[in-house]
């Protein structure tokens, strides 16, 4: 069992770090909150919606209000930076003109307006992660989950990405970041949830 006796409440607008050693259950916790996995016991409520009782279609619709950023970026290498970001807007049925406008705006906000037509493999790791953040943010989500978002990045790029997350949080989005990096947690005034062997210890 990856997690047990978890009782966690995250309020709207919170900025929360979930940390712990490898295998502590950080990713599982995020996947459960994202609806990618079902708990064997207990309940998970996101914005008042019980993920245990939600159907496939409703889960798809809920995910449109949740952004997810991964350590390995999960970008489509055959699509341009612009197309990767626009995808999340097209999926919700947004009109083409609005999608274009939103994509330009969000790419400008993450500092990638000059890389719109590049392919993911033509840009740096930090830029790829910013593309992934732009994709997660294009629909103004309620929550942004990030699983080891800076795991593959050097310290300078990590700082830039963290600034981006704080900006996003200041705009009202709840941000939950899973990380095992101590550097990220040093001098932070944000809430830190520590997991060990599947249990919350702090």
């Amino acid at each position, binding site marked *: 069992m990856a997690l047990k006796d978890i009782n966690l409440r995250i309020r709207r607008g919170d900025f929360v770090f979930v940390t712990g050693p490898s295998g502590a259950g950080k990713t599982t916790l995020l996947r459960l909150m994202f609806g990618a996995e079902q708990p064997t016991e207990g309940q998970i409520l996101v914005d008042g919606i019980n993920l245990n009782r939600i159907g496939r279609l409703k889960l*798809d*619709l809920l*995910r449109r209000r*949740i952004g997810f950023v991964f350590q390995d970026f*999960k970008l489509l290498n055959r699509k341009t930076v612009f197309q990767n970001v626009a*995808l*999340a807007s097209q*999926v*919700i049925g947004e009109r*083409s003109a609005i999608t274009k406008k939103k994509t330009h705006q969000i790419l400008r906000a993450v500092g990638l307006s000059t890389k719109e037509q590049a392919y993911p493999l033509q840009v740096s790791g930090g830029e790829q992660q910013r593309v992934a953040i732009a994709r997660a943010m294009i629909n103004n989500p309620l929550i942004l989950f990030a699983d080891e978002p800076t795991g593959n990045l050097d310290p300078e790029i990590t700082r830039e990405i963290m600034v981006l997350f704080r900006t996003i949080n200041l705009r009202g989005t709840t941000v939950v970041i899973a990380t095992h990096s101590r550097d990220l947690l040093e001098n932070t005034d944000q809430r830190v949830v520590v997991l060990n062997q599947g249990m919350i210890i702090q």
Partner: protein
Amino acid sequence: MALRHWALYFRYAVGNISSNRLIHAISTGTITISLLLFGAFVLFFVNINDWVLEWGQTLTMSVYLKDDIDQQEKQGIETTLGRITGAEISSFVSKEKALLDLKETLGPQGRFLEGLNENPLPASFEVVFKNISWGSLNPKKIKEDLEKLNGVDEVQYSEQWLERFEGFVYLLRLVGLIIGGLLCIAVLFIITNTIRLTIYSRRDEIEIYKLVGATDWFVKAPFLIEGAIQGIVGALAALGILFLMYSLLSLKTIHIFGLPLMRVVFLPEGHTVFILSLGLVLGLMGSFIAIGRFFRFFYD
């Protein structure tokens, strides 16, 4: 669903085909080969059917008349023959014409006929069956009915040959249906598995679509369109190759046992449309089954 959604699905499908050219070429090639096999079989069947029917149309029935027949009886027979579905009187052979024809056929050996005091040959109506539905034709009954008429001496036709011919046509149709059906299943199986390979090769992409909140339909629709495009393109290519093969073949006259066979015909318009539709339906069904299976695996 709004037209703009379909436009988007179509753009996605075309984009996917363009960025996965190799795998789509393999997939379309498989459909082409499968439909080419199917089309070649249909072409073979169409020609065999055509030849058999043409041979069937040369089938004649001779209605021999009594020597003492009067004009009224003769007209009665003509009217009755005219009412038989598919039957057409090709000629009336008078007693004199029959003798002349026999003399001509026999050549120098026919001189003995000159010594005859009386012409022993009967006059006859030569009947040809055209555009007949072989299942509905009952030559035995036609013969019996005609022989009951006043003035008719005897009716002759190649009974055994006709029965074999009917049997052959039925057998051909049955074999055609069975082989055609089996080929369709095989084609569907091949297409489903080829498209499944395409889908599995893009499962990371599908996972990303689902992560950003795409509904199953949003993921499925472009694959269905891709399947349909592959099906139509595959069918068009198969028909093109088939036509090329037919053009090469029809330049030569086919001989069997030294006899020139009838012309080779290409698929009629209806069959061509059928193969195109079959390509479309198989492409769609193949995608539908493959993506359905993928999603069952994906959610497990």
